[in-house]
């Protein structure tokens, strides 16, 4: 890829509070820039998820309403309204579960940590890289800033063909940084390195046996162990594939530890957490910067990024400003006059009423769009320009969606109808600069996208005839 040199200062400025050693960055970016030119841009596909959704009536307001922050990117996006995800309905559970599982799969959940089918990014990955990605790439990168976590499907948004999650969630800047740029290079003496190498060879050999034709394992088990083998190869690359001198020089400073709760602390029994807007956006933007950097440096081509989980519960505080205007003052608990779950922003979705102003919900949804736009914009500047003269945002398939087209849990059809979607051009394959009322199933939208990308596989029941949504194709 003939990568246009990146303005390091711009990148570093964008990295906010991250302190990455300059030699490291220079090395990473120089390596990318020095990579041999390729005929075209690589196939990339990412799912961008935001929690709780945008009620369908608010979507009709276009950029005058909560979609306003997407307006600067309007020429890069195709906004899809009236996308029906009712197929994802699972009786007895609401959209925080089934709608969330349907995002990017168009299938209902198959358990609390498994979807009924793969996500589109993984189908594309399999089609374009049937033998896997190079060992120095992260095959699938799942990251996000979120808190609620009682179901994996709330936050992780890349799933394998068997519906299992495609990678481990990286939920702090440190985790994400380590996954992307960490090194386990062996700094032992040469003898020690050789012995460790022999150990790794034995492990690789055993793994190859159990994934090979003489393996005693069944197909699903073999696939699981193939994942293991791929990770060992990645480990091998990190441990033994780097020049020692490079490793010694490359000692980037890690991002500071996150100040936000993570793990179990982030989800106190589904009752929600207190957080300020500044705290939330500071960490999210750091995650967004790092994820964007991973794409720019070609460390990753497939994956997903989440800004707040499905059914997220936070009690947000802080002044919300946009475009020099103060739009709202978040103070969910006080405005609800409730503590615990009852004081969370989540409740504004339950209280949505078309005939009322819904100003709190609007402010939250607007803020989410602002933050999604922040990430996308990181890949649309001059530093993200690629060999074909377009930006990464232009050349990549970004699918942006959420869990619900309503939030009241009292009408399945309404709740799972009109689920907001937006896609990028994927290097000219899809229209952009429009807002389309597609009036189609998510399954047909996704399958049309796959068809446009020349991916032979389709989502959904094999015997179901596809209803192409040609209106989205360029």
């Amino acid at each position, binding site marked *: 890829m003939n990568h246009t040199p990146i303005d390091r200062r711009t990148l570093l400025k964008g990295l906010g509070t991250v302190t990455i050693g300059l030699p490291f960055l220079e090395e990473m970016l120089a390596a990318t820039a020095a990579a041999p030119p390729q005929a075209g841009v690589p196939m990339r596909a990412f799912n961008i998820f935001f929690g709780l959704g945008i009620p369908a009536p608010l979507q009709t307001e276009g950029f005058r309403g909560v979609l306003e922050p997407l307006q600067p990117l309007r020429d890069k996006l195709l906004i899809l309204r009236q996308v029906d995800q009712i197929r994802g309905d699972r009786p*007895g559970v609401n959209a925080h579960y089934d709608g969330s599982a349907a995002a990017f799969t168009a299938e209902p959940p198959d358990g609390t940590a498994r979807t009924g089918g793969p996500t589109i990014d993984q189908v594309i990955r399999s089609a374009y890289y049937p033998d896997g990605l190079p060992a120095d790439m992260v095959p699938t990168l799942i990251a996000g800033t979120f808190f609620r976590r009682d179901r994996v499907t709330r936050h992780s948004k890349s799933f394998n063909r068997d519906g299992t999650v495609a990678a481990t969630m990286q939920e702090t800047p440190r985790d994400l940084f380590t996954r992307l740029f960490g090194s386990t290079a062996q700094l032992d003496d040469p003898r020690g390195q050789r012995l460790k190498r022999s150990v790794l060879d034995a492990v690789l050999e055993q793994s190859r046996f159990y994934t090979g034709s003489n393996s005693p*394992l069944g197909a699903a088990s073999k696939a699981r162990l193939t994942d293991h083998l791929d990770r060992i190869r990645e480990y091998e690359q990190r441990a033994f594939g780097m020049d020692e001198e490079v490793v010694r020089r490359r000692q980037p400073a890690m991002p500071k530890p996150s100040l936000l709760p993570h793990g179990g602390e982030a989800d106190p029994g589904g*009752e929600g957490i207190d957080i300020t807007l500044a705290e939330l956006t500071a960490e999210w933007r750091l995650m967004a910067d790092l994820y964007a950097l991973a794409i720019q440096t070609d460390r990753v081509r497939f994956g997903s990024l989440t800004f707040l989980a499905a059914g997220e519960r936070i009690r947000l505080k802080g002044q919300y400003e946009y475009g020099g205007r103060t739009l709202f003052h978040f103070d969910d608990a006080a405005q609800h006059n409730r503590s615990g779950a009852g004081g969370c922003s989540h409740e504004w979705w339950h209280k949505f009423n078309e005939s009322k102003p819904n100003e709190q919900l609007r402010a939250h949804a607007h803020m989410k769009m602002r933050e999604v736009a922040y990430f996308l914009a990181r890949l649309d500047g001059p530093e993200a320009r690629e060999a074909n003269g377009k930006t990464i945002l232009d050349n990549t398939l970004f699918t942006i969606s959420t869990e619900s087209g309503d939030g009241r849990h009292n009408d399945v059809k309404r709740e799972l109808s009109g689920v907001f979607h937006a896609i990028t051009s994927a290097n000219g394959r899809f229209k952009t600069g429009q807002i389309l009322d597609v009036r189609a199933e998510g399954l047909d939208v996704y399958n049309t996208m796959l068809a446009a990308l020349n991916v032979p596989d389709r989502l959904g029941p094999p015997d179901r005839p596809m209803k192409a949504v040609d209106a989205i194709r360029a």
Partner: protein
Amino acid sequence: MRLKYGLVAVGIGVGVLMGGVLFHARWFPANGADETPARPAAAPGAALAAARHFDSHIAPLLARHCWECHGAKVRKGRLDLSRKETALAGGKSGKAIVPANRAESLLWQYVETNEMPPKERPPLSDREKQLLREWIDAGAIWSSGAANPLAFTDERIEPHQEFLVADAVRDPGPILLRRLTVSEYVETVRSAVGVDVEREARRLLPPDLRADGFSNTAYNLTIDLGNVEAYAQLAEIIVGRMDMRAFASRFTDSQELSDANRRALIAGMGKWLLRGPLQEQEITTFLGVSSAVIQEGGDFTEVVRYLAQAMLQSPRFLYRIEDHRGDGRPRRVSDYELASRISYILWGGPPDQELLRAADAGELSDQRRLQAQVERMLRDPRAVERSAQFIEEWLHLDQLAHLRPNPKRFPRWNEHLAADMRAETLAFFQYVVWEQKRPLADLLNAQVAFATPRLAEHYGLDRRLAVAGPNGRLPARFTTRVTSDLQALYTFAEGSGDTIRDLSGAGAALDLKIAHPSAVRWSDNGLTVHAPTRIATAGPPRRLTAAIRAAQAVTLEAWITPADTQQNGPARLLTLSSGTSQRNFTLGQEGDKYEVRFRTRRTSANGQPSVDSPRRAVETRPTHVVYTRDAAGKAKLYIDGQEKGARDIPGELSNWDDRHLLMLANESTTDRPWRGVFHLVAVYSRALTPAEVRRHHAAGWPQDQGLARYDVSSVPGRGGLLTQGSVLTVGGDEASMVARGLFVLHDILSSKVEDPPPCVDTTPVPTQPGLTQRSIALTRLADRACAGCHGKFEPLAFGLEKFDGIGAYHDQDEHGNRLRDDGEILFPGSDKPVAYRSSAELMDLLAASARVRETFTLKVTQFALGRPLVKTDAPFLKEIHQAAQEGGGTYASLITAIVLSDLVRKTRTEKTP
């Protein structure tokens, strides 16, 4: 009311457990070698096929599309399609189903024209319509009089294509290799090589996330780079703590590096670490590692070290690998596979030598011998620990540490209270299940509670209700302490005098004499030593010395409160010594750290090098200090249940001096005094496991701070799991009846409800003066649109109304509204509610419920198998449940039935090309 559904055993999941038995499948094949699929006895083929068709296709269809409005609870148009009789009787509009007459069947007419389901619901697909049409045309044959909607709508037991073979064979379920969970990895390492890497493993390995209620669900035990990196790091840590020569001596007597000896070593090591014999190609692979070491000039020890590293990262170590090849039909698992299955189910760890020996001998195919192994393994402490993992996961006890109730409403809440609640539930479970060996259902109403003083105050428990232990000597809370290999125990409960009695009961008592009684002060909380004195046995404690010397292992345990953080020498807490430089062991305080000296043939006579805690570990508060040293020489120092120091202290104890006295608070030379409070001191002739140390820490000491057992038979509201803070907090700050009721419905009764109907405001309503949670719930229940579902679960929580959001008991809420605990319960599958007058009556109803017993079977089986239950499990579940109930409904009987079932003894296979 218990309904007899009479459903066929194949393919109906939970519904099967409701009692219907059309055929009595054989218990286990007599010789353990029968591969013939079990078939219903004397079942007419056509009728059975029709019944199966109904269960597989029609009932799920009706459940999905019809029963929400035309079921047993909601009978719109006076039509109930959930029972054969009512369905054929029809409703207000006439006959819904006329067998073999589609034209006269209103059901078909409405469905065909998409008038039903109503427009806000999706219509039946063409395929579903075809099925319905064909069913009516064929005579509308039902399999039973009634059906449990759950059996046909639960996502896990809906008919999937792969399950259709269940009609022909008894299918032991999906196969997927299982990665060891973090807990299993830690236990496997500990059992296999005697190294405890729990702290490092939990730091380095990505956590296992919960899926479908448990974190050991195989499909979610995925792998990422973080795992691979961690396994490599951990392997290095582990081998760094192993005594390689001692380890290798288990597999070969020689340290020669000849090919033959290396083969023998690899075969032995591999069989032990990888839980079964190696294949030739595996031996060749590991020979390559040993050759590389030799080529680099390495010696025998280094060969063993790198072989161990390679094996610890082998897929065979990290996963439970089985042979899935076959002809597509189920087959018995091999004895080695079975050994691993059993040990991970019962212990969460690998087979021990005895189990591998039994596998070698082919004994596990024999039911009687297998059962004997299971009985043996259930007597092992690992079985208790594994069952504790089950209860922790089922009730999601880890969540307690993260709860953050509104501090203004609940100022009493803090991390310590949360920890007390968690400890209470674990102690309660262990007491009821393991000590009293009562049926699992008794967990719902056992009239016993375990509480710290803090939790007792929170619960409003009268401290006088704390009860003594069964033998009248040990305090009640000692019921959760380890008693095996106990050599000396002092609880300082005498209250006066100059003698401290040894309560261990291990032979001749090793009572201690206080040299200067004026230097001590007795209290309800223990013995305060405020001036120098010597507290010692009258003579050398030869029994104790001999036991430790024989075992080559020890545990020194002390609950103490130091007077300050300066005393040193080390100041003697507990010592078996004769002067300042001659000792067998000394547990002491050196300024602000704890220090333990333990003599072996490879230490100095003074027991050095010592094992030290970090600086600032000593605080002037009650502290639990435990030193363990096992036969392999691994020594650890725990402070308050956490490992704070470790060291290899190798060497035999044959040089121990049996003339030393056992002493507290000073050295025999009286120049190493310690001041502070003794609450408890114990000595064991074995190394307690980390879990046992944690349990002892949770148990506390007799006089005050630990968990005490309370008889709550006279305490309103308390008694049983649902009355414990750990469970009551599921209702959140508002003590939500919806959340609590759904918890009971889902997790205690294994049932579910449908989505709320259209256009209902689902926003929670807050309480206020004149408006309690109950009155809000009653308003919902008065609404026909809500009652259909809310009536199934909210009344389950009525009996808990007096418990607030963090489990405290009140007669009035914060607004002064009077609270009640009476109500009615509608058991799933029944249409007749049962009234209860109090929380205690509700608990009794639950404990007596067949549904609750079935839930335990489902939950424990799911945890044991490490996968969600699927429809094909139904016949096995029925057999397991029946056997468990015949065995008394205890955990032991249930887990035994699971292990002896074909779900564990057989495996599905895949056809090999």
